[in-house]
């Protein structure tokens, strides 16, 4: 008796295989897969001193901002839309699927709210003689001069505009699972294709929220590195002297298609999303369960969903934020899932170079995972000068040439969000 086997169109559970036929990426390192791949494998950092706004008085004055794209006004939802559009244009063009996208849209977007320049403009228009109040802002809003900002600052607009731009079908999904959002966008697309609801899905993670209040919020939670000098040395995943993450920006887009449909139209298949796993954690708002059980469960769920044993994984694209807590828990989780093999299983964190791209991270790192498979080269974890001896990992300190067929990509977020993906070159 042999175990059920996958075919070229269906996995071992009889579900449609989900192929990737297009990818697009924007980070602080550049625009497009080629530019990003060159920089990532060269070990170049996109982290720099923040130029977008004054950083006087801040403990953290660095970030991986995308400075070569901008918007007017320069606000998070517009930047996020711009990054997403650029990434999706690349992915859709590569897929050759056409100008009217024949499937749904799943886009991970940062939470939206009005920003300080707009509050200030309303306050000025209100002209209250003494204290500025929300009553004054409301009266200014009622002047009708600011009506265009309504759509800018509601949650559905980014997805709405991307849906219009690419002609996706049905109701677009805007979602958040905090720092695992990008992976969740992919998971939702995979699930929809497996259900047979659609033959293709456009899955995007995007984040353009490096602004004073977002930075300060993370700073107040002591989540950010304060090693501002030199900026490119601050993000040190798995190092003993790691002291927090560095905010990053960017977007990635993936065109997912049922393998059957991709083959039928003669598309080039770049790889497959073989499995998705998730597990909630009710321990604490920002910390993982001390035993790592939810992180472990999410990784195992992704492997189970892919129908693979841990030994089938060649490389872990880590969440690797460079916070003391995350890297410790991720190492603990990997040790539990991979056993003693963890010390020989190459693991690397793209965040060492591009920072933590938050809502976009899961999608960006899935794209990097696919590029890793295609090129047989694992991008390094830069700044790995002082290994944390407590973490028994094979951290890739310089780009490593090695055949890679299957990657586990981890994403973990505030609020007990844990989402893992298994990406591969061939069906399991």
């Amino acid at each position, binding site marked *: 008796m042999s175990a059920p086997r996958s075919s070229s169109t269906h996995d071992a*559970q009889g*579900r449609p295989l989900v192929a990737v036929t297009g990818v697009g990426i924007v980070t602080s390192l550049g625009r497009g897969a080629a530019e990003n791949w060159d920089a990532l494998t060269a070990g170049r950092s996109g982290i720099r001193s923040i130029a977008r*706004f004054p950083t*006087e*008085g*801040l403990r953290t004055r660095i970030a991986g901002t995308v400075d070569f794209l901008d918007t007017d006004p320069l606000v998070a939802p517009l930047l996020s839309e711009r990054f997403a559009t650029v990434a999706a244009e690349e992915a859709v063009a590569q897929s050759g699927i056409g100008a009217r996208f024949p499937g749904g849209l799943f886009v991970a*977007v940062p*939470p*939206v*709210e*009005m920003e300080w320049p707009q*509050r*200030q403009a309303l*306050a000025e228009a209100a002209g209250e003689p003494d*204290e*500025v*109040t*929300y*009553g004054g*802002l*409301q009266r200014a*809003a009622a002047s009708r001069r*600011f*009506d*265009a900002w*309504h759509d800018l*600052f*509601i*949650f*559905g607009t980014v997805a*709405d505009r991307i*849906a219009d731009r690419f002609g996706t079908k*049905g*109701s*677009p*999904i805007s*979602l*958040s*699972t*905090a720092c695992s959002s990008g992976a969740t966008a992919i998971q*939702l697309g995979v*699930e929809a294709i497996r259900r*047979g*609801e659609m033959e293709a899905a456009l899955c995007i993670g995007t984040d353009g929220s490096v602004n004073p209040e977002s930075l*300060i*919020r993370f700073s107040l*939670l002591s989540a950010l590195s304060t090693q501002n000098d030199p900026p490119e040395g601050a993000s040190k995943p798995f190092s003993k002297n790691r002291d927090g993450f560095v905010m990053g920006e960017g977007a990635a887009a993936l065109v997912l298609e049922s393998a059957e449909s991709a083959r039928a139209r003669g598309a080039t298949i770049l790889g497959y999303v073989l499995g998705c796993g998730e*597990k*909630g954690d*009710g321990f604490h*708002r*920002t910390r993982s369960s001390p035993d790592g059980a*939810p992180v472990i469960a999410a990784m195992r769920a992704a492997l189970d969903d892919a129908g693979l044993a841990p030994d089938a994984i060649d490389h872990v694209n880590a969440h690797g934020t460079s916070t003391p807590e995350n890297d410790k828990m991720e190492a603990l989780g990997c040790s539990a899932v991979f056993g003693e093999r963890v010390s020989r299983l190459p693991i690397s964190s793209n965040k060492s170079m591009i920072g933590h791209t938050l809502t976009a991270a899961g999608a960006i790192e899935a794209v990097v995972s696919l590029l890793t498979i295609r090129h047989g080269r694992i991008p390094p974890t830069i700044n790995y000068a002082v290994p944390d001896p407590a973490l028994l990992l094979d951290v890739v300190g310089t780009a490593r040439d090695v055949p890679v067929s299957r990657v586990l990509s981890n994403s973990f*977020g*505030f*609020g*007990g*969000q*844990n*989402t893992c993906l298994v990406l591969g070159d061939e069906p399991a």
Partner: protein
Amino acid sequence: MSRRDRAVVVTGLGLVSCAGEGIEAHLAAFAAAGPPRTDAESFAPYPVHPVAPLALDTQIPKKSDQRQMEAWQRLGVYAAGLALDSAGVKDDSGFKSALQLIVAAGGGERDYAVDGAILTGLRGTNDPGAYLNERLLNDLRPTLFLAQLSNLLAGNISIVHGVTGASRTFMGEESSGVDALRIGHARIASGQVETMMVGGSYSAERPDVMVVHEMGGYLLKPDYRPVFERGDGGGFVLGSAAAFLVLESAEHAAARGARALARLMPVANDRVARAPGSVSASLTRLIGEAGIERPDVVLSGATGLRDLAAEEVAGIRAALPETGIRATGDLIGHPLEVAAPFGAALAAAFCAAGSAREVVVTSVGHRRGEGVIRVVAA
């Protein structure tokens, strides 16, 4: 291999609004059909439908948890607790550790005093960048961020109630509530998961949301009027509300001896470009797609914007000329993301009470999205 036709049943409901808390309070308020409780003073000129007073300790026992949440999260965690109670699983850690969540939500409250003081101070400074940095660093509560983050309603439900299967948070105003129900249903129907809790929470009693919705002129002033009788362009009256539904495959519910309150059918929704007549046509088509037969009532989530409400009613009438239409806005106001989950929960309550065999819930977003939800007796 398709298992898309598995029946999905509702086994738990949690409701909180200006009409009170729980199933009975809402059935009674619907039957009474009086005007909803309205506060036209606190946020004048904007009326709101304030949430009924809640005994928070009954669902959120730890004061430390209550303190770490803002109102929108407390309402949602409270309603989620009611839904778990109603499903008989509050103390079933096995059930809750497998239970997955889809939450439809926006974001949380701001610190209004801090914002006002900063905006006041910014007028008098020569170095606004440094001033803003200094004030935010010193005046923002570190935990406020977590009380604002969209996915932290789900996070708090995990922490307070031990619901730890996994969660996804959908954003995007009214349509996110419809999408949450659609995808929650589809995942169970297709066999991807056995149990889900779907819902959302909205706090209307906060001046920042009135700024956002006054931009564009979407709010009704200065007094509540029934949703379908609003003059000029109409507008919405924001309402604080939370609604959660525990959904299960019928087999799963039967196996644990749970009562099916109602059956949720596949949700039909779309997002058409807005042009005269397009919303009507979309709704009519979606009613067909949803397989509506002979509904006892249509529960409309109409926002109160006059033209959209007229299109919605026309779209429903074209498909269901005989069926009465009631606006949930006349019961709880407009709670954006929560409108569709609330309507679906109320529909399930009617079916469970034996007062309806089939209920249609409609949702037309104020900027985008049309949805039709069909709930039938189990």
